[in-house]
């Protein structure tokens, strides 16, 4: 028996604030072993096609009373909000900084050893707010050829929206747990060369995370891609 939804997090929106304290045992915080620094080595999706190399922005603090508020319109309003310059086009570099309200936030180039990207652990390890937060994630998918009829397949704990090359591809509204292939896009075309996948994820109480992969027209994971961050 767990109450997830109703834990009130009335933190002021876009404020600094202290990191959430989840236990007295948390004297040492680190993003390891949930993340390692991204390298420039050639990296493919994992054996199931999941993309594990991402640029992650430290969480933007929000005020969220319940995860049940994540309606389509709510997500649109939240993600249409201008938090930082060029938020729908920027391909940031590791350690780039920006300001959102009173928060100074940093982009981190990271790799997840697991198929899912554990945003809660990212925030927790960096001593940021873990609940009532909004994350941005960006990655670059390099395709050896044009691929038609691919689908972007996403699972996320929290509401999220995902864009491929600037076009909105997946919206995950409602009170969600992270389930692989929970929502998939309509048929899309992956360009030869560089493609940018961008996601925004918002969550109240919960272990925020996501998993993303591309499926071909037969529903088979696309794996002959390389993942870079530029």
């Amino acid at each position: 028996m767990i109450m997830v939804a109703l834990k009130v997090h009335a933190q002021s929106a876009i404020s600094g604030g202290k990191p959430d304290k989840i236990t007295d045992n948390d004297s040492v915080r680190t993003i390891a072993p949930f993340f390692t620094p991204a390298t420039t080595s050639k990296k493919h999706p994992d054996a199931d096609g999941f993309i594990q190399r991402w640029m992650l922005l430290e969480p933007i603090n929000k005020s969220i009373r319940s995860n049940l508020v994540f309606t389509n319109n709510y997500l649109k309003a939240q993600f249409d909000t201008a938090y930082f310059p060029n938020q729908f086009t920027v391909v940031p570099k590791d350690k780039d900084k920006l300001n959102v309200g009173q928060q100074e936030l940093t982009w981190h180039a990271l790799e997840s050893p697991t198929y899912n990207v554990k945003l809660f652990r990212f925030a927790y390890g960096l001593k940021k707010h873990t609940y009532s937060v909004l994350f941005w994630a960006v990655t670059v998918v390099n395709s050896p050829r044009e691929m038609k009829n691919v689908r972007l397949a996403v699972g996320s704990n929290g509401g999220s929206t995902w864009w491929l090359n600037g076009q909105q591809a997946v919206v995950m509204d409602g009170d969600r747990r992270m389930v692989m292939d929970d929502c998939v896009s309509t048929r899309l075309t992956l360009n030869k060369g560089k493609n940018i996948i961008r996601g925004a994820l918002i969550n109240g109480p919960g272990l925020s995370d996501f998993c993303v992969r591309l499926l071909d027209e037969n529903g088979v994971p696309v794996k002959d891609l390389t993942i870079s961050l530029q």
Partner: protein
Amino acid sequence: MKLIVKVISTITLSSILLTRQGIAQIGKPFIHDPSTECDGKYYTFGTGGGGLISDDGWTWNGGAVRPGGGAAPDILKIGDRYLVVYGATGGGLAGGHNGKILTMWNKTLDPKSPDFKYSEAVVVASSDGIEDNDSIDPSLLLDPTDGKLWLTYGTYWGYIRLVELDPKTGKRAEGNKPLNIAIDCEATDLIYRDGWYYLLGTHGTCCDGPNSTYNIIVGRSKKVSGPYLDNIGREMLKGGGKLVVAARDRLIGPGHFGRIILETGVEKMSCHYEADLDQSARSVLGIRPLLWKNGWPVAGDNFKEGTYEIESERRGYALQIAVDFTRMPGGMRFNRNNDEPIKPVPSQELADVVKTWPAGNIGVNLSDYMFRPHQKWTISPVAGSGGYLGGTYYKIVIAGTDRALAATAEAELITVPSFTGTPEQLWRIDQLTDGTYRIMPKEVPNSATHLALVSSGDSTPTLAKFDVNSDNSKWNFRVH
């Protein structure tokens, strides 16, 4: 017979007396995160300590006793003792995830028994508050294949874990390490059936009344250690799961699955609903039939009152009273004028035929269904008749009349002109694991034997011992 149920509802034991029939339990079925055992009675233990007791599985009242507080206990009878397992903490309720799971023994669940005494509780699993696990919501499985005792636990806070316990002591098996078997579930329950281990969990969010999104999902594995996959081969470690039950019948947010095998082919599942819209949107205990379709558990439907054809699974014939067939108007197929106007022909109504029926007792038989009045049965719950796990007793009368189906002392069937409420006129209806139904009189006069409605011939019903392997014992309720 192992009878274990995990059930739930809000913690307050209200004084409201409920009389709703057909779906809900009656009495005071309010309890949170319970687990039910059968020891001549049904016991339901819930979050916070204490619980409910029912003599018949239908009417519930307070009285069960469990020390230790905490959340979401489970109980398993091992030998002649009961092993109780519970989470000592409350999950993320207060923001903490330092969980502990404890076990303790008792010789009986009856607090009035002189043998009622819990052993000292011992910790069998824990979480440090940081790791991806919260050690609450435990569930036990005594593996019928090898006698090993397994504990699953955890919540949305990271992984669901599996550990082995010692069935003799209830303590953690020496040297055993936790194994991650699922994510993002709560209130898991591990069961075994036909060579498969099934892991059931609750997805969604609880505790928000009619807006709670709780639902029960399942994955399965050939090995207790997993991997647990859903019906499309997706791992529960990646969020996979096939839906077992979501909201229905004005009951919202089912969670905390428990399985009860009453006998082969007759299974029930327990759960709690986060909100019953007919009971002030309170959280209540729920018991439904448990069906198995293509090797997967699916929640069945508790019987709903209405007017039905009662169809034999044997040949498909309909139960009917043995009265003379009365012809309808409408003409024969021969010598019809194709130019005559097309018009509807009214169905045969009760008033068209009832005066031709005998006034006294009338026998019953089976024939092909022709939606005639002598084939239509109205089935409705009988207030105050008691019940059984998941249902109350029903009267079965010819639609529009008080003519009631009854068992005879010779273990045959008859209809009596008027329903009087005697036990031989009360019927228990259980949906079976294949989706068909078993129909049983509450009592057969002068007999202690439990018999069921059975097709002894294509056209002949009787009362006989229920045989789950025979279509003779199975019935369907059709609405036309």
